[in-house]
Each structure stands twice: as structure tokens, then as C-alpha cells.
């Protein structure tokens, strides 16, 4: 069996259970003092990489590396990834106040990380829940010239062949491909485990390679300009009618009848 070297790109985003608020200047979502955690799709990707190691004979999965591009606190998400079971990680640090990278920029940097780490399988979330682009994985596969499987709900490895079940409109699509490959995880792929305390402690001692944006030769510039960020209109509460006649006249009033 081909040995697997898995790279898991992750992102630290506002915790999905937190209600995001728009900042006073209406230029962005408020992030200061707001709980952040690993993007849920990425957590699933980390879990899947660790599951692959557990499922196959020892040594099949040689190395699991988490990589993230983000401000200094991104280290927390990398520690979580290593507590779940990644062996080490790479942190591409960007300044605290810097703009979020657009997919092409992220993909170009990730490509150079791939050149450096030489993985043969990339498992990453199909999208991050903050900017919701859902493009980075596809661009990365394109830049690398690798095969890709988007929206994975099941992954199985046989030699150097990967079989991926994808959730598509109307049912399930099964694709097969040869390594190297980029797989983008969907929600139903697995349920991430709770990191145990001993593993959380061990994760503190695992290695994090620090890189800076300037270390990367090929870069793209952000091309989008944010004009304004606003809350969606608040939902109007429903009303109660006393009886059937009331309902009918209300429907007529709204032009539904």
C-alpha cells in the first residue's frame, strides 16, 4: 500500500454557535472578544485524516500535517488539530488586523506549502463558514494539477486509489481517483471526537513551523473590495388570527388568495 502523507489545511473562524455581529462602521463582522474555533468543516477533515490512520495498518498514514494561514491566535486551532491527532503543523502568520485572504491567494500559498511538505493527499473543509467562498480547494487542485473530490461523505483508500462518495443534488455520486488528490469534506463525513486531556497536553509539545507571508514567492492580491457589511433584515413576527374567517380575510389582505 502506498503510504499516505496527508496535509490538512484548516482555518480559525468565529465559532459557528456564536451569533456574528456587524461592527459599528459596517465594514466587517466584529471579531474582537468573540469566541473563535476551528471551522467545522476543517474539524471534520482533521478527524477524517486521523480516522484513516486508525483504520489502516500502522504506517499506512506516514504523516498528518495541519496548515493554517491566519493571525497569531490561529495557533489555538492548530493545537486543537494536533490534539485530535495531527503530528505537526505549519502556521503561515499574517498580522492581526490584516484582511482575510481571498481563495486564490490562499490557494497559491497552500500550493507552495504542498511543494515544501510533499503530501500526496489533501483533506480540507469544502468551505469556511466565515467568508463562505467554497473555492480554495478547487483552486488548489487546479494549481497543483491534481484530481479533486468535492463534498465527500465517505472516503476509502485502496492502494493508491481513492474512492469518494459525494453528496450531490438528487443523491450520491461515487468517484474514484489516483493519488495525489484533493478531497473536500462535507458535514456528513464523520463526527469529530472530543480531544482527550492527555492528547491536549501532548499537542502542546508538537512542532509548529512558523512562516510569514513574505516567505512565499508566488502571491496574488485580493481583488474584492468590501463596500458595506449589513445585518439581514430582522424577521417580522407572525400574527394570530381568532378564527377561520380571520385567516381568510388576512390571506386576502396579503393578496395570497
Amino acid at each position, binding site marked *: 500500500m502506498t503510504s499516505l502523507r496527508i496535509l490538512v489545511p484548516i482555518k480559525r473562524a468565529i*465559532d*459557528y*454557535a*456564536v*451569533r*456574528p455581529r456587524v461592527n459599528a462602521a459596517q465594514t466587517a463582522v466584529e471579531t474582537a*472578544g*468573540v*469566541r473563535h*474555533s*476551528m471551522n*467545522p468543516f476543517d*474539524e471534520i477533515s482533521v478527524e477524517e485524516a486521523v480516522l484513516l490512520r486508525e483504520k489502516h495498518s500502522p504506517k499506512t498514514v506516514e504523516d498528518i500535517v495541519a496548515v493554517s494561514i491566519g493571525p497569531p491566535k490561529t495557533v489555538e486551532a492548530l493545537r*486543537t488539530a494536533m*490534539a485530535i491527532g495531527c503530528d505537526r503543523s505549519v502556521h503561515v502568520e499574517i498580522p492581526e488586523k490584516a484582511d482575510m485572504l481571498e481563495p486564490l491567494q490562499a490557494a497559491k500559498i497552500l500550493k507552495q506549502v504542498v511543494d515544501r511538505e510533499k503530501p500526496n493527499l489533501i483533506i480540507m473543509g469544502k*468551505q469556511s*463558514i466565515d467568508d463562505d467562498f467554497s473555492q480554495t480547494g478547487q483552486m488548489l487542485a487546479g494549481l497543483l494539477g491534481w484530481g479533486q473530490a468535492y463534498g465527500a461523505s465517505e472516503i476509502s483508500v485502496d492502494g493508491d486509489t481513492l474512492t469518494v462518495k459525494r*453528496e*450531490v*443534488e*438528487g*443523491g450520491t455520486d461515487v468517484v474514484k481517483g489516483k493519488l495525489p488528490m484533493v478531497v473536500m469534506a*462535507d*458535514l*456528513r463525513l*464523520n*463526527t469529530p471526537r*472530543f*480531544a*482527550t*486531556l*492527555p492528547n*491536549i*497536553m501532548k499537542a502542546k509539545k508538537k512542532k509548529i513551523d512558523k512562516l510569514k507571508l513574505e516567505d512565499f514567492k508566488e502571491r496574488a492580491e485580493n481583488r474584492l473590495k468590501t463596500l458595506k457589511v449589513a445585518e*439581514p433584515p430582522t424577521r417580522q413576527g407572525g400574527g394570530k388570527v*381568532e378564527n377561520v374567517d380571520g385567516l381568510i380575510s388576512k390571506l386576502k389582505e396579503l393578496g395570497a388568495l
Partner: protein
Amino acid sequence: MMQSAGCRTLRLVQLPCATLRATRRARSTRSVSTRALQNSRRPLSNSVSRSFSTQPSRCYAASKEVKFTVDNYPNVKRDARFSQLTREDVDHFKGILSSPSSVVYAEDDASELEGFNTDWVRKYRGKSQLVLKPKTVEEVSEILKYCSKRNLAVVPQGGNTGLVGGSVPVFDEIVVSLSSMNSIRSFDEVSGVLVCDAGVILESADSYLRERNHIFPLDLGAKGSCHVGGNVSTNAGGLRLLRYGSLHGTVLGVEAVLPDGTILNDLQTLRKNNTGFDLKQVFIGSEGTIGIITGISILCPRRSNAVHTAYFGLTSFSQVKKAFIKAKRDLGEILSAFELMDGLTQDLYHTATKKPYPLDSRYPFHILIETSGSNADHDMAKLEAFLEQVMGEEIVADGTLAQDKSQAEELWKWREGLPEACAHWGGTYKYDVSVPLNEFYTLVEDCRKRFEEAGLVGGTTNESKPVVGVVGWGHMGDSNLHLNVPVRWYDKQVEKLLEPWVYEWIQKRKGSISAEHGLGFAKRDYVQYSRDATALEIMRRVKKTFDPQGIMNPYKYIPMDA
């Protein structure tokens, strides 16, 4: 969307993203939306598996008919001084209440009365013919004025999530439900004082405060249904009493209607006010026996923006005590919950929900620790020091630290979901007691031995025995233990083994037979195990002062004849 199986798959495929988005937008029902995400991760075949929401669901034993309280307790007799409800009475109430939907009468719609007559534990069921849902304090006043004139008995009812049968009628008492009085009246962001109607649901009040960076100083498993007025009138304790203290300290004022219709407007918003008797204190924990609370004012602390949750497995109760001492020492000012769950509770929850255990191995004891503070980095440093100590000294055998909010909510379910998990097999005998920490868990062990010796324990599989097991969990931080005996059916044999044995056990240790659930119907005749004759006599005098006719929530709370 409804013709073919293909469409169903389509909907499911789209669900995950839609759910995430919906979750981020509407955070008002926090655990429900977390569930949605969790469910959407599961394969289709599991999507019908039971999910626990914060709403106390009645689905578990819904097929079994609940017996009338009067049939179960034939020695309790209807007080002949009370009048019988007549059609004229109902017409009068229809006249004084502004909305026709405020009057639910058995002869018009019997089915709607069922939920008001049956309690959440499905142990008590009354025969009330009438439910009134006033919308204003004046309407409550009109109702009680009429009831005292006619000598009609009344049961005030909030979310009906009580565990001692205090919120449902025993005979034909009129149910006055506060569910239509559910407005927030005011909130002062500077002082943190919230004034609201009694019928506001605890979770709604908390969501309202969350938007304003504050927190309701009370949290409990039934938050999705219980009313804040009910919380105050039963002096509910809950999960965060350790941090925010009892309602006797946080409630600043109440608005209440006395049995004769008098409106007591004591809705103070002052923190300090030494001018005469502190009347609100009599209402806090009075369980609807001296009047109906219609509004409250309460001091709400600022919400902590850094909350961490950890869950541990331990091998013995002496290790639990050591962990508690360490937590108080290392986490002192940020500790907001210290909850104990024994091993069997976790097994029951696992069996009832089919969820995977949070830890790989099974342990006889589990604790759940929560810290709340203002600075995540500082709190994390404290928590890590604590974790290193308890792991290093092998006080805890294993554990996990929630990495995000949804994991924290998931871990909390292994504590908050226990009442429902216990009800899974049919019903539960519940004891909510205060016990000195030294013998905190001995009660469960002694009780378990008693049932095993009697040969009544069938575990989760042997359906010929009434008892599923004897379990314990509780607010260790407040010395408050919940002893639970989940059963397949309520059984006199089981009852005889429990009572008065439990109460005598508690009395010997100078504990309380009701730490936070109250007395209600279930514990009226046992109150003397915790309070002496003089105290009870003075309570009776208080009751008679407010309610000379005895129409408010009769047959409950304390015995009226010495």
C-alpha cells in the same frame, strides 16, 4: 418537495449549509440549532433517532395513561369548603378576560386541558375543568377576587416543569396559567436590572439578555419551557447557583396578586432597601400558596465572554472531592459550575440517546466543570494549570476540554439531559436533597444496596423488574444531590423501600429533603424531617395571614393541621 424520494435526498443534501447559516443567524434557541447540525451529520437511517431538546418532551411514556392523583392517593380528600365550578362561573370569567382564547373550559375543549392537568414527571394528574390565561395583572386580580368571593380553589401554573407535583391541580382547582403574560417590561443596561412578566420563558429572557451582553442569573435543564415567575415562586436553584447565588439574593422585587385580588406592587429595582419587612422574600419559594407572582425584577450580571467547559472521568468519590478542592483553589473566581454525574447516569443517557460516550473508557464518576470569565487567555492559563495538576496527580483518570461552543453544548447534555434519559423507561422517583459533602454519594450507594437486596433491579434490559437502576447526580458545588430511581412503572413496593427511608437518612445527617425542587404535593407530609414544629407553626400563620380561606394551591406545601 413531497412527491418523490429523490426530493427528500435533495433536501437532505442541502440541509447542512442551510443549517449552518440558520444557526448563525438565529441563536435564540441555542441547543436546538446545535442539534440540527449534529443531526445533519448523521446518515439518513439515524435521522429518526431521539434527539433531546431543551423542551421537556413528553414522548417517552406518552402512550401510558397517567393515573389521577386522587386514585393514587385515596386518603387525600377534597376540601368540602371549596365550591364546585358552575357554568355561571365560567361565563363570569369569559366576561372579565379580554380574549376568548384566555378561557379553556372542559365542556368546550377537553383535550386542551390534559397538558395543564398532568405534571411533567407524569406522576400527578388533576381533574380541573377550567384553565384561565390572563393577559394582565388586573385580569389576575379580577380572577382571584371572584375566586375568593365564590370560594373556588386555584392552582397558579407557569411552564409546568416542576418535579414535585406543585403546579397541577389535585382535584378540580382552577388552573391560572401565566403563559399569556410574557413581556419584558424593561431592562437597564447600566444597573443590569431586568423587569418582566412572570410568564416569560427562562430561555427567552436569557436570549433577550444575551443580545445585551447580560445573563439571567439562573440556568436549568427546563429553560426552554419554564417561566421566570415559576422559577421565583419555587426558588429554583439550577446549574449556576454556585456562581450567581440564590434567587433570594438576585430577585429585587415582585409584583403579586393576593388571594383577595389585592395587587402588591413591590417591583423594586433597588439593590439596597432597608425599609421594613422584605416582603418579596416570602413570595420567593412560596409555591403559589399565598398569591400569584405576576412580575419580577431581577439583577442580571454581565455575561462572561470566555466560557470553558471540561468533562472528566474519575475512579472514586474521594477523587471527586479532591478535584473539587483543587477546582476551588485554582479556578476560584471563574468557576461557574461543578457538576457530578455517576457512571450509571452516563450509561442511561448513552442507552436512551445512542450517542457515543465523550470518553473512551467508563468511569464510576464524572464531573463537568465550567469556568466563566472576562479574559479567555487568563482563564485558559488557570484552567491549564488546573488540568495539569489533576492529570499529573492522577486525581482524574481521563477527560476532555471542549474545543468549541458546540462541543461544550454537547458535553452539557450529558448532565442536562439526565432527567429525560431517566424518564426513558417510564418514570422516575426523584429526590432532590442537600447532603454534607462528606457523605454526598453515600446516599446513592446505600439506596442502591437496598434495592439490590430486595431484588427489584432489572437494569436496562430485564423488563420484569420495575427498577432500572439507582443513580445520582447533582450540583456538587452546592452540596445538592439528585437521587433518582428510574423505573418502568410506578410501584408501591418501590415506594415503600424509598419512603420514609430517604427522609430519615437525610434527617440523621441534618440535610434538606428538598434542596431546590420545593415541596409541592410530593413532599408536603415530609417537611418535618427538615424543619421543626415551631418553624412549621409560623409558616402556617404566614399562610393564614395571606390566604385565610386557603384557596391558593391547596393540599400542598405544608400540612395545614398541626
